[in-house]
């Protein structure tokens, strides 16, 4: 099928400056359905900044990001509806429970039944903690709530910034498993992680920064 092999996400000649320092330049890549791009590089080389450029939070100095062949700025709502971004911060409201947080965040982007959200929380192992305010969850449990958000969002493109942080061994395996399944469903993954990931199949690629 033509659509499956089409390039979905493309970055062309991206360059970003922060103050007087150039973080990166001439970064180009193409990503098709079912592919994972693993971005690696030393601390402070601009990996997170690159992800923020790719999801449209930061404007690059030069270069363009394309989603389904259209410039990001012209296609913002469509792109954001098919993207799920997991950043450094967990983006949870401390006074709301894990469930309330998900109901709100996902409610802005898709129609979900409570069962879908319970299912996602069960998958990440938080069934018993879903009515606890997020402030009393541990760092690893908060990360698992974010993973549940990615699972339930139904997004085509996952942008994961250090998803392994704070997770125990079982949690890290869960991330690998989730990514493998997502790639199997023709999803796309942009991954920033210092450690090697455990995704076996799917097309994996590496982008070295710095």
């Amino acid at each position, binding site marked *: 099928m033509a659509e499956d092999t089409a390039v979905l996400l493309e970055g062309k000649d991206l360059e970003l400056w922060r103050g007087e320092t150039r973080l990166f330049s001439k970064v180009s890549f193409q990503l098709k359905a079912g592919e994972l791009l693993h971005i690696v590089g030393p601390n402070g080389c601009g990996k997170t900044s690159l992800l923020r450029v790719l*999801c*449209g*939070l*930061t*404007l690059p100095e030069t270069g363009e990001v394309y989603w389904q062949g259209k410039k990001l700025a012209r296609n913002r*709502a*469509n792109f*954001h*509806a*098919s*993207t799920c*971004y997991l*950043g*450094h*911060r*967990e*983006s*949870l*409201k*401390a*006074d*709301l429970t894990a469930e*309330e947080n998900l109901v*709100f*965040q996902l*409610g*802005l*982007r*898709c*129609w979900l039944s409570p069962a879908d959200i319970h299912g996602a929380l069960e998958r990440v192992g938080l069934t018993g903690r879903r009515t606890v305010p997020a402030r009393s969850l541990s760092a690893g449990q908060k990360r698992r709530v974010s993973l549940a958000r990615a699972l339930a969002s139904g997004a085509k493109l996952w942008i994961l910034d250090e998803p392994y942080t704070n997770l125990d061994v079982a949690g890290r395996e869960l991330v690998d498993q989730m990514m493998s399944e997502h790639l199997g469903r023709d999803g796309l993954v942009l991954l920033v992680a210092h450690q090697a990931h455990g995704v076996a199949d799917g097309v994996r690629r590496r982008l070295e920064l710095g």
Partner: protein
Amino acid sequence: MEWPGLGSAFWLQLTRDLRLAFRHIGQAANPLMFFVMVTTLFPLALSPAPELLEAIAPGVIWVSALLASLLAAESLFRQDVEDGTMEQLALSPQPLSLLLLAKTTSHWLMTGLPLVLMAPVVGHALFLPTEAIPATMLALLLATPVLSLAGAVMAALTVGLRRGGGLLSLLILPVVMPVLIFGARATDMAMQALDVSGVMYLLAAVLLLAISLAPAGMAAAMRISLD
């Protein structure tokens, strides 16, 4: 790709913010406390003579309302930006201007509307004639949303700064000066039993202008702050 409509997004954002505010009701009540305290301190500090208090009542009520909403503007977006939920709003398929307008609406319901409802009590304490109370309440009802909207635009602009408090007041004050002038004038005219409809129309026009322009300004300023 399809996603829920604007109405349900607005409602979700509004109810989430109200729920959060009710879980911290003490913090949300701060501007109201400030308003009541300042206005009741004047009779104590000046003199409890009714003629004097009646003469200064319009000015005291309006300046306190303005300062109370200025105090509230600082906290409007800061928490959301700090815990990262604002990024997620900016990355949702919904227009950021709509979500920020919903946040501002909830903010007004928690900090602006109580000022309107408290105005009769405060007016009574300052010997404001009873005839002037309905006009003052109506004028506050039209003016406090403008204060919230103007505060929201400036708060979005300064939220990226570490110490934006002083700058925020400097930015908001000139913009809301007309509201203060017309509002105090409305109370003043009502006290002299003059026709206040002209002032009310002006305040309503300012409110319509703010509702139509401020959301776009908030969204643009917020995207810059998040960059």
